[in-house]
């Protein structure tokens, strides 16, 4: 299989990485998509309640986390570019910075969750918080999984497991990470901003 999908001029038949991860990515997107649409329509049952509850979220931390995830995705792109250039050391460094940015996301989110829980907000407070906490915690778990996948890719890279000729594992892990970013790009305006 050609793992060098985006460095050739002609279009590749298959997306970067393992095909199975793309089936997984599309399935995950479908699940999140259903949640987003159900949230949007459920909001119509009590718009005032949703707007009042949304006033309590920390938009700045939500935006900060968006910037962090977008930047981590860009770092992941650099990791793939590095291994395609056969620079495994540089690839490992970009992978580490990507994981590090994931760590920043986790810390910001933990502060946010702690703040909400300590002020008495829980899943059963009202419909808005049920959706907000369910969707953000669900996404948070995907960030953790993404970091674990990237850490596994990093460990294999440290053992010299990837090269310019064979780097499908890097593309696979990075593709999953981009999916985590893509989901947050919709989630942030939906639950933090739009009213």
């Amino acid at each position, binding site marked *: 299989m050609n793992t060098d999908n985006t460095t050739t001029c002609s279009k590749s038949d298959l997306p970067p990485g393992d095909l199975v991860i793309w089936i997984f990515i599309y399935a995950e997107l479908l699940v999140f998509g259903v949640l987003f649409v159900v949230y949007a329509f459920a909001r119509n049952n009590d718009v005032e309640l949703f707007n009042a509850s949304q006033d309590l979220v920390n938009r700045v931390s939500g935006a900060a986390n968006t910037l962090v995830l977008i930047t981590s995705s860009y770092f992941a792109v650099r990791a793939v570019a590095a291994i395609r250039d056969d620079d495994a050391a540089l690839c490992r460094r970009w992978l580490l910075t990507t994981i590090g940015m994931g760590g920043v996301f986790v810390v910001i989110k933990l502060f946010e969750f702690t703040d909400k829980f300590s002020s008495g907000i829980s899943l059963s407070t009202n419909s808005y918080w049920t959706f907000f906490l369910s969707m953000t915690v669900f996404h948070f778990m995907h960030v953790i999984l993404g970091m674990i996948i990237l850490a596994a890719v990093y460990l294999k890279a440290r053992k010299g497991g990837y090269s310019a000729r064979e780097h499908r594992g890097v593309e696979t892990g990075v593709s999953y990470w981009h999916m985590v970013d893509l989901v947050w790009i919709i989630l942030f305006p939906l639950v933090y*901003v739009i009213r």
Partner: protein
Amino acid sequence: MTQSAESHRWIRPCTKVWLVLMVLTLVTLAIGQRGLTGMPVVGFLMVMTFIKGQMVADYFMGLKRVAWRWRIIILLYMIIVCSLISTAYYISVG
């Protein structure tokens, strides 16, 4: 063209996309902080979300250089999800 040159050709647009994504996120935050509401605002935010999602899919995920059948899945996904969210908010306004 060498592989390194190819990679640089690929990285340059991704760097621009990264900067655009950062700016669009700050615009989204500014709208939220100002408390702007109404259907035009919702429409604007969803169009921005659609553009951001497509940028991630096309450039970061690399689907721009992959067969159309793979790219169209996320394109349709973004269109359907953003449209349904907009419809839900349109109903709430109306």
